């Protein structure tokens, strides 16, 4: 009886939710659900990384940077460096030795036809591990950059 007589009391407000809800919660939740669905579907969680393969600056194309560059051939049956097939370990060692004289030396990786990108990237990784900073991919048919 006392609650009915004092409509502003706490108990009464809970008892009559319609009076209290100036803005209903349901449309808000609808919107939030839609936003949630959007972000769930549109976002991706794959951790993408990248390999830097910058082109040399213009006008530098036939400069000394290209002379003395190391050429690594990636073929279907193995990796060739300086005219012979080498293993990945040996390749890393030899590139390291070559870089000891000139750390700025450019390394060209030249994949042969039908070599998959994954195999080429493996060689690029090995070159990065050997400390090569200036790395380029090169087309076997057209020796330019």
């Amino acid at each position, binding site marked *: 009886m006392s609650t009915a007589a004092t409509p502003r009391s706490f108990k009464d407000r*809970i*008892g009559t*939710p*319609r009076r209290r*809800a100036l803005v*209903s*919660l*349901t449309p*808000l*939740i609808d919107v*939030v*659900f839609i*936003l*949630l669905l959007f*972000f*769930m579907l*549109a*976002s*991706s*969680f*794959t*951790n*993408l*990384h*990248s*390999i*830097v*393969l*910058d*082109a040399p*600056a213009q006008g530098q194309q036939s400069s000394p940077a290209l002379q003395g560059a190391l050429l690594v051939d*990636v073929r279907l049956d193995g990796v060739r460096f300086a005219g012979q097939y080498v293993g990945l370990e040996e390749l890393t060692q030899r590139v390291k030795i070559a870089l000891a004289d000139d750390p700025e030396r450019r390394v060209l990786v030249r*994949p*042969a*036809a*039908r*070599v*998959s*990108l*994954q*195999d*080429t*990237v*493996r060689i*690029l*990784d090995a070159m*990065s*591990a050997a400390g090569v900073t200036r790395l380029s*991919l*090169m*087309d*076997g048919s*057209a020796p*330019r*950059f």
Partner: protein
Amino acid sequence: MRFSRQHRARNNGDESILPLTNVVFLLLIFFMLAGQITGPQPFEIDPPRSQSEAKADGGAIEVQLAPNGALALDGEPIEIDALTDAVRTRLDADNDRPIRLKADGAGDATRVVTVMQALRDAGATKLRLITLATDSE
């Protein structure tokens, strides 16, 4: 026991969905902060695995290369002859914009080199080859 049942019956209005709203808000904030919005992908691409530590740049022009050699520029399929001009137009607006090349790991490496040369002909100087971290497998 009796008390709790009574309590629940009384709060049958908006009150009972408040915990649900809280959880949904938390999920929303999680997906907003943790996820990255990606554009539409024209074809399924599985980038090569690499130990490279460099992060992929945002705000870059993205060139996609499918395993069968099909090309797309920012999600729109394109031919390699038209690629150079299209990229040059985009680079004219902002010369320093990096280009991300997202190629499939099973694709031909020579095709990637051809595309890279087309991009360099367009005047691109900052080129990134997109890879996946090896531990994300």
